[in-house]
């Protein structure tokens, strides 16, 4: 079966994730959406690696998983710290970083 299907799938997942990032207010769900996006990328990589018979793609998928783990740990840490200081996890209330 042509690789296009995989690409379309990952595109769809990516877009869904992007929508989640943009529209949700709950930071945790935003983080999850980011995980979803990373996952979509992984699908791409693995598909290509399969179709080129080159394992490098899977290696990078592994790295992406590692990065995702790091991102989750740090992100959740930030959220907990934020919650402790500002009592909120709403994305649009985290707006200190502006002019």
């Amino acid at each position, binding site marked *: 079966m042509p690789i296009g299907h995989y690409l379309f799938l990952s595109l769809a*997942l990516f*877009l869904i994730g992007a929508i989640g990032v943009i529209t*949700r207010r709950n930071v945790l769900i935003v983080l999850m959406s980011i995980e979803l996006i990373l996952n979509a990328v992984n699908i791409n990589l693995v598909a290509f690696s399969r179709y080129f018979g080159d394992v490098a793609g*899977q290696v990078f998928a*592994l790295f992406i998983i*590692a990065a995702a783990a790091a991102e989750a740990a740090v992100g959740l840490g930030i959220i907990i*710290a934020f919650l402790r200081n500002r009592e909120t996890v709403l994305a649009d209330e985290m707006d200190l970083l502006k002019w």
Partner: protein
Amino acid sequence: MLDSVIFYFFAGIAIVSAVLMITRRNAIHSAIFLITTLLATAGIFLQLRAEFLFISQIILFVGGIMVLFIFVIILVRLDVPLPQVRWRTQKWIALLVTLAVGMEAGVVLWFARKIPGQGLIFPNPAPADKLHPNTEELARSLFGSYLLPFEIASVLLLVAMVGAVVMAKKRIDA
């Protein structure tokens, strides 16, 4: 044929539960649907004969990251549905833009498929029984040509761990 059946099966699960994931109000539900998405993705990896990635997807993403998420959600009582009002405008903009991106990418891929002659020009995947054992392959290139990135990734994880501890640790003085 069987491959494609499996693929469509998993892809359907993935997309549906992804949509559900971003539409649930309750964070825990979103987490569960994300988990199903990830599992479905893992299935697709398996269908792509990337066994090791499949297992590490399950161990790390599902068994590690998502458990962490749920843990945090329960710990800080985020399992109550949060108000989802305000800034509709941005939401509409967002949807619009996203759809635009999707359209464009879709068009690109589609026309790439529709080149006169044949479809996407790719070497067809090697038959499954001809493949080398995936884990060994991965290990070889991971510790061979990608050793430095591997080390860097490990350092990244270490740093992330320390950072998470530092940030989430309860200040004794405060």
